[in-house]
């Protein structure tokens, strides 16, 4: 019976989730990546957190940067390595390039190097070691055979000493071999890759991928990686769940007439997408939804990408809602951001953290399309799915707004992921009728329940906010945007069925 491989906490946010527990304990793990991918930060964070948070002292073997540069650079993350050195929790083995020439004459081995490593380990009673990078060793010496042999010897010795080791290795190109000199073949059964690729918008995006852990489980897909002010963060891909808790209870959208269209409101724990052109009243709808929640004493989270807090509270006040009061009282958390401020993973993190922290029951993201504008399609899809899975698990009723670009006329819900991720879809539209711009609301779907299918007219008034007046009658081609009056000659339900067909075929 094989023994179960133990793992040690990496100290890298999110890594222990994708690695199902951390770095293989007492083994050597190779971390390979092109230059600039963040291998050094990964190594130092693993060691630093090990010494500070997990009582595992550390040895850092540096080949490229001098110890004093590492100390200086890592201060920006708030990591005080000098303090650890004084406390005998950290030792350097300095293998950074020196300026003296070197000549090779005859046979040699790396006994000096190995002796220094063991000396440093004993000095601080280390449990963790990182060697950054082993590729540099090959540039120091002419005979790669000797290096391979000695690295193999080192890995075996460390295993004997039960020390957890990270060796970094340079990747020549992003899509080439795992590492220069094929280090992975003789050094380690555990390989982690850090990718650093250009994205569709010309920026750089880093991901981390566990290629293999001998005899231990791990996630196999790549996870986004970001280095920010407190070090490296990894954002595990959310594991989409098919269904959260089923629907049972219905709650109000905050607009009585719209609740009626849903036959008594929307399901608690459902996701509703409100889609419409600019000015159709999506933010007003959102405010209705939030104020309704706050009035009932529910915690609400309002993520706003298009207006400032002042604009939004003023906007709310113009309809007679004291949003400010709810914000001050802590019932409503309002977060206004430029969508460009953070990356998709960071937003996801932020939304999740705030939802949990505030115990939010209602969440609005206004608008989702602001994020879609700046993310790649793939990223956006992941964001929507991840967000949706999270909300489903946390009993949150969600309202997402989506801005369509066409003011009039047919706009398709091309955002297929929006459509599948949502339980309810509400369409807001302008129609030109009798020389006037009128507003139309229609429920495209409600998952798990029937809904009314009429196209309703609504207005936005200071007294009532969104105010449904009644169904459009005797008009056709409303959804096309240029309606014309017709005599009612055929059965209404037939026309309705036609509209429905249209919407099903995705033309709306």
């Amino acid at each position: 019976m094989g023994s179960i491989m133990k793992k040690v906490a990496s100290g890298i946010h999110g890594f222990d989730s994708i690695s199902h527990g951390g770095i293989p304990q007492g083994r050597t793990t190779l971390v390979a990546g092109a230059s600039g991918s963040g291998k050094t930060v990964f190594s130092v964070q693993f060691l630093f957190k090990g010494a500070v948070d997990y009582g595992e002292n550390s040895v850092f073997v540096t080949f490229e940067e001098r110890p004093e540069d590492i100390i200086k650079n890592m201060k920006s993350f708030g990591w005080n390595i000098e303090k650890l050195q004084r406390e005998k929790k950290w030792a350097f083995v300095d293998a950074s390039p020196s300026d003296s020439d070197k000549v090779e004459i005859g046979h040699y081995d790396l006994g000096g190097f190995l002796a220094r490593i063991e000396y440093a380990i004993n000095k601080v009673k280390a449990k963790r070691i990182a060697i950054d990078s082993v590729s540099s060793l090959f540039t120091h010496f002419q005979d790669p055979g000797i290096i391979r042999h000695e690295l193999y010897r080192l890995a075996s010795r460390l295993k004997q000493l039960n020390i957890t080791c990270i060796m970094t290795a340079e990747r020549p190109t992003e899509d080439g071999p795992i590492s220069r000199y094929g280090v992975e073949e003789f050094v380690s059964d555990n390989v982690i890759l850090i990718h650093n690729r250009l994205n569709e918008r010309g920026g750089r995006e880093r991901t981390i991928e566990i290629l293999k852990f001998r005899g231990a489980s791990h996630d196999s897909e790549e996870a986004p990686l970001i280095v920010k002010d407190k070090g490296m963060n990894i954002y595990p891909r959310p594991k989409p769940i098919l269904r959260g808790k089923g629907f049972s209870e219905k709650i109000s959208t905050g607009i009585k007439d719209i609740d009626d269209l849903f036959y008594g409101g929307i399901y608690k724990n459902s996701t509703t997408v409100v889609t419409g052109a600019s000015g159709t009243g999506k933010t007003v709808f959102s405010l209705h939804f939030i104020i309704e929640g706050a009035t009932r004493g529910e915690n609400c989270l309002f993520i706003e990408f298009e207006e400032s807090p002042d604009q939004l509270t003023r906007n709310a006040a113009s309809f007679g809602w004291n949003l400010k009061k709810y914000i001050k009282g802590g019932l409503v958390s309002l977060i206004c951001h430029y969508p460009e401020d953070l990356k998709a993973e960071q937003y996801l993190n932020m939304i999740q953290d705030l939802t949990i922290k505030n115990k939010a029951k209602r969440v609005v993201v206004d608008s989702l399309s602001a994020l879609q504008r700046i993310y790649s399609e793939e990223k956006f899809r992941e964001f929507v799915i991840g967000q949706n899975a999270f909300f489903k698990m946390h009993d949150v009723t969600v309202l997402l707004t989506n801005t369509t670009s066409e003011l009039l006329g047919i706009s398709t819900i091309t955002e297929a992921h929006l459509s599948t991720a949502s339980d309810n879809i509400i369409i807001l539209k302008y129609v030109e009728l009798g020389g006037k711009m009128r507003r139309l609301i229609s429920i495209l779907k409600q998952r798990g329940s029937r809904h009314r299918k009429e196209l309703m007219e609504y207005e936005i008034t200071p007294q009532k906010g969104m105010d449904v007046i009644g169904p459009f009658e005797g008009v056709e081609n409303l959804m096309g945007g240029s309606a014309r009056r017709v005599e009612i000659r055929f059965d209404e339900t037939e026309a309705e069925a036609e509209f429905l067909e249209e919407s099903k075929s995705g033309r709306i």
Partner: protein
Amino acid sequence: MASKYLLKLYVLGQTANSQKAIKNLKTLLKNDLKGLYTLKIIDVLKNPSLAEEDKILATPTLIKTLPSPIRKLIGDLSDSEKVLLGLDLSFEIKGEK
């Protein structure tokens, strides 16, 4: 008279390469640099902190600290011509002769 040479030879215990290096170096010094050098032989297993200071990776390693510039020679020093060249001794010795 030439300035005095200060040499350090880092070795790893009783390994073959290290023993060879000691033997080769001593022969060479006796022949070419008699009385003009100080040689320290350092075992990295016994003095790892010295190895750390001199950033030793390979053993054996011969370091010429004086006169400057500092030179590092790696290996069992089996080719005495190369050793002399590496220590910048070649020209000087020939000149004296």
